[in-house]
């Protein structure tokens, strides 16, 4: 262990610790806790039973608390080991908790309410993972449907984005035609028009096309990303024109030039755009929220928000489904993070 610490904290040049070194490590360790901690706490909580989630103070490990049926109460009550002032311990059942004071009863004598400070009691329990949190939403609720809708939207929108953006980028980088700069200006201009500015008219366009409550209504407005066209065009500009001239000599059609020559050579940029597009479309929220109003067409994000917005939030299911929603993005993060970070540093897009 000390070897590891020595390896980590050894300073190049071997000089003594400067206050900037102390600050650096403070910031890095703090960042590690603040950035990963909340997500880990969520994953951890998602394995707890509703009873364990309602507990305060919460425990780190998922426990199942022992319960007992007490005369006079309909629901089974949780059992606690309560320390008395004289140091003796007895088992009581909790009726309800108000702030830091718990009202408890002795199962043998259910008539009398005993008030106990929550610092003086520990629940009787054993460790158990509540996998039911993950199974039930798929069986009893529509989460499988939401998952399918989200996958459909993400895959189809990404494919269309790659095709249309690369075609447009090809035209804008390898052809000289009148109005090319006007088209470029137009695309730059659309950078200034985020979705939130055209919500109402876009909604009426989608409705008029009969795409309200349809996944296509979510997909189509998002596929013509100006950032995608820009990025691909920048990349295609570096492909030498001689390749195209040579192909034309060999009687290749323009479509073949695009498909057989330009697209394969643009593969690295296409891969970056694909990663971005997957993350964008998987995470989209505001537009699906407006277009999709029937449960059968909800995406995961909209479905999650709906369940989390209900008056009586069933946190044990919400937490588990949040974890499921995180999984694809976390996979992208683990395996493709390098592409994304270089993509951002290179082009400043998000």
């Amino acid at each position: 262990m000390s070897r590891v610490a020595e390896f980590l904290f050894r300073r190049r040049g071997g000089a003594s610790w400067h206050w900037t070194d102390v600050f650096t490590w403070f910031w890095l360790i703090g960042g590690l806790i603040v950035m990963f901690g909340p997500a880990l706490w969520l994953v951890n909580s998602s394995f707890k039973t509703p009873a364990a989630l309602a507990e305060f103070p919460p425990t780190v490990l998922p426990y199942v608390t022992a319960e007992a049926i007490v005369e006079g109460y309909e629901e089974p009550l949780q059992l606690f080991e309560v320390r008395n002032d004289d140091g003796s311990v007895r088992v009581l059942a909790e009726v309800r908790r108000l702030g830091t004071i718990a009202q408890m009863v002795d199962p043998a004598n259910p008539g009398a309410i005993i008030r106990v400070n929550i610092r003086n009691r520990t629940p009787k329990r054993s460790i158990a993972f509540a996998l039911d949190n993950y199974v039930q939403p798929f069986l009893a609720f529509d989460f499988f449907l939401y998952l399918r809708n989200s996958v459909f939207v993400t895959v189809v929108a990404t494919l269309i984005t790659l095709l249309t953006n690369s075609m447009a980028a090809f035209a804008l980088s390898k052809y000289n035609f009148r109005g090319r700069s006007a088209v470029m200006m137009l695309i730059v201009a659309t950078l200034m028009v985020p979705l939130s500015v055209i919500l109402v008219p876009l909604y009426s366009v989608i409705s008029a096309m009969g795409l309200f409550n349809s996944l296509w209504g979510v997909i189509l407005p998002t596929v013509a990303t100006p950032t995608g066209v820009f990025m691909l065009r920048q990349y295609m500009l570096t492909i030498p024109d001689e390749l195209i001239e040579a192909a034309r000599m060999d009687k290749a059609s323009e479509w073949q030039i695009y498909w057989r020559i330009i697209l394969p050579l643009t593969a690295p940029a296409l891969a970056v755009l694909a990663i971005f597009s997957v993350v964008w479309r998987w995470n989209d929220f505001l537009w699906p929220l407006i277009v999709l109003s029937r449960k059968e067409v909800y995406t995961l994000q909209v479905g999650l928000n709906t369940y989390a917005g209900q008056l009586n939030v069933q946190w044990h299911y919400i937490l588990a489904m949040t974890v499921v929603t995180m999984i694809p993005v976390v996979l992208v993060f683990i395996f493709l993070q390098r592409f994304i970070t270089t993509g951002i540093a290179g082009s400043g897009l998000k």
Partner: protein
Amino acid sequence: MADVRNGIATRAGAMILAPVGWLANLFDAPLRMLQRRTGSNGMAVFFLAPNMLVFGIFVLFPLVINILYSMTGGGALFLGDRTFVGADQYGRLFSCGSYLDPKSCTEDLFWIAVWNTLVFVVLQVAMMVAVALVTALVLNRELRARSFWRAVFFFPVLLSPVVVGLIWRWILQRQGLLNLMVFEAGGTPVNWLVERSWAFTATIMVSVWAHVGFYSLILLAGLQAIPKDLYEAAEMDGTRPLRVFWRITLPLLAPNLLVVLVLTLIRAVQIFDEVYVLTGGGPGTSTLFLTQYIYEVGFASMLRNPGLASAASILMGAVLVVLTLIQLGIARRNEQRGKMR
């Protein structure tokens, strides 16, 4: 190892692409006929068409009719069914006793949303730039496993806003992790998302948490572009770190800082998703921001008024256009400077 992996990826890619390639070949014959008509240069129009069609229908056309929407009234969705009201919607947005006191606007929540957004933008942008700068400076030091630490700060950027909102709702709720810490430290638990000023603070903190990794990446790229010999010279002269920061780092990083500043401004003005999931605009209207106002007036509330939502969105759009023009101007200037170097 990398070679093997690349080999597998290439072969898998080829297998997936084989049927796609077959499909693309099917298009070749009709497209050749088209090309005979247009000439090879004329095919540019064909390649542009799909993208521009989507742009036209789903961005440009809505943008134009948005102005018409903002000048009509009533709850009808299609323009033909709506009645012309002139500038009434704008008048309603601005019907205030005093513009400095949002509560004096009795007709509507617009001005409250504007003030909330203004305060949010100022505080959030300041905090975002500061945290992103410190993080970038720390990551730019000689660190072991720098890519790991960079990834640590970048991680929340990829999470969906709904997930971000739910993660923090779970932590900030009355029996959540934060209150556990407060309780363990001997304090009284606070209902973070129910008390106005705490809820507002939470929206700032959570949005910084979610996006700071992105901006520190941009700043880190800027820091790494600063020539190393400048620092070596400073070290030889025995210059103190703070002085190096003020005299070398900050002036040379200024163009990147400006980009980050404007980008955060543009994003902060439009803040919606995370906050909507986290607080829903509450308690009361204390975290109601512009985009949520537009969404609720246009779609969600009982008395929906698309014209009013359009008018508000046009005003927000005007602010964004100004900010984006500034951003493009800075980008062009930076590019020219890069060429001169």
